[in-house]
Structure formats: C-alpha cells, structure tokens
C-alpha cells in the first residue's frame, strides 16, 4: 500500500463539474473578442487605446482595492470583463484620461466598495458609463464615423440620435448597421460580432437565453406598437451589446429563470420608454441600471416553490 502523507477531508460532494468562475469569465472574454475585433477594425488605433487603458486601469484598480482590504488578488477575469465591456461602450474619441477615471470608478466604487465580485448591486461597466455621461457629457456624446486605421475621424450622429428620420427601410444602411460600419460606441455598432460572441456563450450555456431573447423580443414588439421599425431598434444603438453581455451579468441579474424572464420584459419596456419618450436617444444603459436596482426585489418575489410545499398544507389541513 502506498503510504499517504496526509489524507484530505472535505464535505460532500467530492466531485465537481463545469467551469470555474475564472473559466466562465475567460469564456466571456473570448466572446468579447468578436465585438472588440470589430471595434478595432472599424475604429482603428482609437479602439485599441481606449480598450487598453480601460482594461489596464480596471485591473490595476482591482489589484489595489483587494490589497487595501488585505485580500489576495485573484486574477479571476471579472475585472478583465468589466474593463473590456467598459471600453466597448465608450465613444471612440473619448479622452484617455477620462477612460481611466471611469474604469477606476467602475471597479473601486461600483464593485469593490460593495464587496467585490458577486456582491455588487450595479453593473460596474454600466455604472461607470452613467457616471461618465454625467461627468464628461460632451465627449460622451461626440461620435465619429468609423475610419479604421486610416483617415482622421469625422464627427457624426449615431443612427439613434436621428430616430425619427429612420423609419423607412434602407437596406444599405441596415447592412452597415448589422456589420458595424456606423457611428457609435466602440463595441455596439457591429450586431454581427455581438451575435457571434453571444451565440458562443449561449451555446456553451455560459449564459441563460432568457434575458437577451426576451429583452430583444419586447423591444421589437413595442417598436411595432409605436409604429417604428423593430429591426432598426435592434440594430441601432447599444441594445444588442447590452442584451447579450450586460443584462446577462450573473451578479446583477435575477437568480431564478422566472426572475430573468420578468427582468427581460421590464428591460424591454424601460428601454423603449426612454427611447421613445425620453430626453436621451439611448436607453439601454439606464434600463439595465434600473433593473439592477430592482433585482433584489425581483429575487425576493420569484423564489422557487419548494418541493412538497403544497402537500404540507393538505396534510396539515
């Protein structure tokens, strides 16, 4: 018999399956490579530098915060996801120092102040985006046409800012929007790249289909109800990126499937409310943040019904 130095005791079960937290995060990073790739393709070095600063600042802040709390820093990939996503929802021309400020805000205030991974109430990337659009409103609303690595950028409007003008079907423009060849935040313009990345995560069951599918579905239905083109609403603006990558963030979305479906419906309704009636052309960021806020309430009222609950009432009565 081989002598065993020290046996190990641990609670049951003694088997595990499935990805670890960091593997999940790196899968998301992998999926995000598609929209990031599109961003670099369309916006060139600007995209590269914004993403670089955002990721760097996010990781550094995470490191500092963890150490300040006396915890060890684990490279679990969640700060990486936050960094990439935060970069992807910024306009290409944003000054780099503001990107760093935003990424620090995302990690230090929105995530670590609440206790770090798993404890934050609001989506760090989106919280920081909202912070940025209030703090640096001007650069946050300056958009450029995609020019790749080439020519100097020309300021332009995003498709959504001229909402009313886009009611007729224009195949060429739609194709551009689908591929990502329009003005907008770095990662939100290419619906194709987002679909590939999101599809990957859905297929790998890393994320639950309920939120994105219902979210996009409700937006389309409401667009129809308001007499607008649903396809336009899906392709323009940050809906796809938000629905696939941000509304699905485990930490800030409801726990149960029922809760996720409710959340999807609310998200769709809020987004269209803001897009249709609101002062801002884009509603995805604020809708998701609002849903983050009421997630605890949704969780509270969508708990599973335990096995054997009804029967007790019967047998007791």
């Amino acid at each position, binding site marked *: *018999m*081989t002598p*065993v*130095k*020290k*046996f*190990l*005791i*641990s*609670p*049951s*079960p*003694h*088997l*595990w*399956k*499935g*990805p*670890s*937290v960091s*593997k*999940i995060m790196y899968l998301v990073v992998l999926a995000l490579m598609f929209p990031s790739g599109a961003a670099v393709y369309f916006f060139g070095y600007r995209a590269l530098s914004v993403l670089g600063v955002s990721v760097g600042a996010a990781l550094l802040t995470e490191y500092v915060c963890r150490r300040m709390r006396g915890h060890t820093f*684990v490279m*679990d990939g*969640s700060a990486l996801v936050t960094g990439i996503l935060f970069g992807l929802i910024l306009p290409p021309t944003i000054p780099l120092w503001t990107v760093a400020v935003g990424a620090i805000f995302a990690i230090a205030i929105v995530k670590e102040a609440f*206790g*770090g*991974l*798993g*404890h934050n109430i609001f989506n760090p990337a989106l919280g920081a985006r909202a912070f940025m659009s209030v703090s640096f409103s001007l650069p946050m609303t300056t958009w450029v046409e995609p020019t790749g690595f080439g020519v100097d950028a020309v300021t332009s409007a995003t498709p959504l800012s001229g909402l009313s003008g886009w009611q007729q079907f224009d195949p060429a423009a739609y194709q551009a929007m689908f591929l990502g060849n329009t003005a907008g935040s770095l990662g939100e313009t290419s619906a194709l790249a987002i679909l590939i990345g999101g599809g990957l995560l859905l297929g790998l069951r890393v994320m*639950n289909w309920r939120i994105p599918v219902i979210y996009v579905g409700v937006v389309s239905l409401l667009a129809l109800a308001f007499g607008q083109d649903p396809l336009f609403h899906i392709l323009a603006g940050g809906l796809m990126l938000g629905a696939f990558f941000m509304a699905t963030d*485990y*930490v800030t*979305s409801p*726990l*149960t*499937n029922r809760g*996720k479906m409710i959340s999807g419906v609310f998200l769709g309704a809020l987004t269209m409310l803001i897009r249709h009636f609101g002062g801002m052309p884009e509603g995805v960021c604020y809708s998701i943040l609002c849903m983050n806020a009421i997630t605890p309430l949704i969780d509270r009222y969508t*708990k*599973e*019904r*335990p*096995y*054997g*609950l*009804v*029967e*007790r009432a*019967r*047998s007791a009565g």
Partner: protein
Amino acid sequence: MNESGVRLKKKSSPYGVKVPERKLTAQRPIERAPLPERAIISLHQNIGAASQALVRRGDRVLTGQKIGDSDKLISAPIHATISGEIAGTTMVINPATARPVEALVVASDGADEWVQLEPVENPEALSPKEILDRIREAGLVGLGGAAFPSHIKLAPPGDARIDTIILNGCECEPYATSDHRVMLECGEKVLSGLNIIRKLLSPETTYIAIEDNKEDAIEHMEDLIVAMGFKEDIKIVPLESKYPMGAERILTKLLLGREVPIAGLPLNVGVVVHNVSTTKAIHEAVVEGKPLVERVITVTGAVNSPKNLLVRFGTPLGSLIEYCGGIVGKANKVILGGPMMGFAQFDLGFPTMKGTNSVVVKEDTIVTEQCCIRCGRCIEICPMHLMPTLLAKYAKAGRYDQCKAAYVDNCFECGVCAYVCPAKIPIVQYIEMAKRELAKRAAKK
C-alpha cells in the same frame, strides 16, 4: 422485450445532473472479503438511538450474537460480526453526527463460529408481528444509505395506508455497483424480501426503479419476476441515469406524481421505498433467521483492483483497501459512501458500518471557496426546488432563522448544488451547519 408487460416506459426528470459514470466494478462478481482480525463494532449504526453494550470485556461472542441493544423506539440491535473475544471498548467518531460514540472491539478467533440460526420453513405462515420481530431482532436498517430501522418503516402508524411500494435499485451514485451486483446475483432473495414486505403492507402497486445504465439488471429482474410468478403485480420502471434519481422523494414524484410533504415521510403519501440490498437482508432475516452482519460494499476508485466485496461490519477500511491492492498514485481521499453524499475519512482504522455501501478512494486537492457569482446554476438543478445559494449565504452569515424560512430542512443534502457551483462553495456543508444549529436551538427550547 416488453412481452411480459412488467416493464414500463422510461422516465426522466428535468432536475438533477448527469454525473459522468465511473462504475468500474459493474461486471465484477461479488467476492467475500477476508474476515477482520479485530472488528470494531460501533454501537450506533442507525438513525435514532444508540445501543448499549450487552457484553463485557473478555466475553466470548459468536458471529451473529446480539451484543448491543436499546429500549428506545427508533433503534436497532447490533450483532457480533465475527466470533471471538471482546477485547475492550473504544470510541469512534460517528461521521453522521461528528460525535464520539462507543464501539466494541472483537478480537477474532478465526473460527467464524455462528450462533444457532432459526430459519422458517414456511414464511407465508408468519404473522405480521412475527415478521416485524424477526426483522428487528436481525438488526435490520435501510441499506440505501440512511440506515433507518426497517421494522419502524414497515409498521406505519395506524391511520397511514400504504398503497405503493417502490423497490429502489437506482444506485445513482456514480461509483457504486453493490446494488447492481446484488440484483444480478441475489435477485431471488431481493424479490423474496420484497414479497415479504408486500405481504406486510399489502400495497396496490409495487414498482422496481432501476436506472437505464443497468440494462442487464433490468432484464434479469424482469425475467425473475416472471419466473417467480409475480406476473404484473410487480412492475419495473427504467429511469434515465441521473443523480439523484435514487432519492425516495424524487422517486415518489417521478413514479407517482406525489410530492412528499416538507418535514414528512413517503408514508405520508402512501409510499414505502426500500433499497434492494435491504430487501435481500429482509429475506435473510425472515426466512433464514440471519442477523445483519454483512453487506456488499463496492471498494473502488484509485485502488489497484476495484471490487464488490461482501464485508462484515466492523472491518477496518484499511484492510479492505489493502485487499483491493492498495491505494494507487497520489490519491489522498477515502470516502465512505459515494462521492456525492459520502463522508471523507482520514483514519483507515475506521470500521465499515451498516450504512456504508461503498468506499471510494480518489485524489483531490484543497479548493478555496470563492464568492457566489449568482449564476443560478444551483437553483436550476436543485431537485428539491430550493434556493441553495441563499441557504448557504444565510447560513454563512449565521442567519439560521432565514434558513428555516427558506425551507432548509427540505434539503436532503444530495449535493448537486455544490457539484455544479462554479465558485466551489461548499453549499451542503453550510446547509448542514444551519440544520445542526437549528436542531440545537430546537432542542434547547
């Protein structure tokens, strides 16, 4: 194949998980393990009260002699599993309660001399009371894992009407094959035992539930049912192989659509579930008059030659592992029971007990728990439809009342939540913590 009408359609459940199977010993016939030189026989091997020793140091005992008993209602006597001399008493830590309990040490005389057994010629002639008495005197407890005294389970309180018996041959733990082998090799005894409890309870229907990864067992049992003339009184239900199919609450739901009430028992919905090894032991106890001194245990995992062994209780783990060729490689974990629900043990001198259905040796590392990322996987698969992540969080924060309000008592600790958790949170451990704390509080009141 379905000519007999005995086999029903396969059933499956959306909950639970498919655990990759490692049934290394499915095709290995049962072997008899060598008798231990010293048997350490714990006086508390069942759910309920512990037994008091009936013998003293220096007494000579025979195999099958009653050496411990209790006058508490929920208890089962303990028998000597080898013949020899009582060498003294010691303490062992009961894995189920983590408390030290007394154990008797029997030093073998190597003769394995049995007490005089009292077989009955015609079991049909026994009265229900006689049957129950024989079951109790044999020290029978459920061998499916929980070790609940069988004579209690088979004597439901006056107003309870049992209309269904389910014979549990699922064996959903991914390594265990002892029930599988018992069905293949001792199928007659299993069915005979089943028939005895059918006589006791006279149910309308009797099912045998077997997972579809044991096709040979299903066929064998099917043939036996026909051969023994049970006709369609006993039906076999093949089940999708999924953990924890074998839990009785899942079976009642899946087979009958009945949910066992929270804090209730299957008998509250008219069902009794017994394990195949238990009915085999019932046959032996009632017909052959043989007390429960041994059972089939699968010794598997990282051992040189995994085996299905017929083991006397009290045999130290170390000798079983040695008999199977010793530990392979860097394996550092010995699990009493299956890897999903079993207890890790670090002391190879620890004896096997009635509830031990397998011993699994494997290599494992220390994992650090991370924070819950609220992925919801545990909720999606919990067969009891609980909110495992919340239970763990509440327990961790010491909020046991909230655990209670979230039905922590309904959890049967199957462990699939922790199995799928990406953050590697020992959810079951937290849940158990809360249960113990709540029980402690309830006891204080």
